[in-house]
């Protein structure tokens, strides 16, 4: 019974670390999605080059 703290610390660290990793990924997804939305708006607004333009 004296080794019980090792058991609970191990499971505690594993689950806290995995949950923190999930939160970090979710934050990254949110950030990249925001960047993508913003850049899509810029692409839609940007004037396209006329076709056949000889330069």
């Amino acid at each position, binding site marked *: 019974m004296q080794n019980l703290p090792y*058991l609970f610390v191990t499971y505690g660290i594993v689950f806290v670390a995995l949950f923190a990793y999930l939160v970090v*990924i*979710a934050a990254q997804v*949110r950030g990249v999605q*925001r960047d993508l939305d913003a850049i899509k*708006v810029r692409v839609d607004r940007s004037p396209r080059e006329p076709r056949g333009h000889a330069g």
Partner: protein
Amino acid sequence: MKEPLALADSRPSPVAAPTPSRWEALRALDPPLRLVLGALLVTMVAALYAIFVWAPTERTMGHVQRIFYVHVSLAWLSYLAFFVVFVGSLGYLWRRDERWDALARASAEIGVVFTSLFILSGALWGRPVWGTWWTWDARLTTTAILWFIYVAYLMLRAYVPEVPRAARYAAVLGIVGFLDVPIIHLSVQWWRTLHPGPTVIRTDGPQAPPEMVVTLVLASLAFGLLYLALLLVRTRLERLKDEVRHLQQALSLRGE
């Protein structure tokens, strides 16, 4: 690790879609993800019940032996993650398709997280059982090498600026690095080690009681579903990053 995604004009646009909250964004990523997360929840609860209540207490080590279930499951899933890196790397070098590269990148990061956790859980198990946190035993040393190989893989991805070149170099490292996995598995047979040999995957059948084997399988299934959920989200994230990069390149070609 995060690629620079800052835009020259990042002011919110009045026509841009409202940014979803963290969990809404996670849920909206992939339709099968919710199914995997549901199965993960059920399996993880069952696995934790089996680990802490149903599985018998080992006679010599006592309750601390229950670390075995999380330690071995994470180890197996790490090997699977690096096998996916191996397959993704081969696929990228063969097809030059960014989807293979995204799969390899995503799986490498998850593999490093799982490897870090199984090394840590091993140290926390080794301290009360062996009397030491760490020893330069063949199994532990080859595992540490595995961790360094895939940390190097992630550093390569982060610091080589040209994405196709980084993908090519990383693919080679992902293929060569995987050779360490069978070496880790066989290290306990090739060298005299403090780490015990396999007790479950053996040619003469498992040497653990059936309840322990079932609990290990259940825990591995739960962590396997967790790996699958993380892989779905991380691969989607990598694809989104690729899309942002391509659009930025298109804008810069237009002179913006």
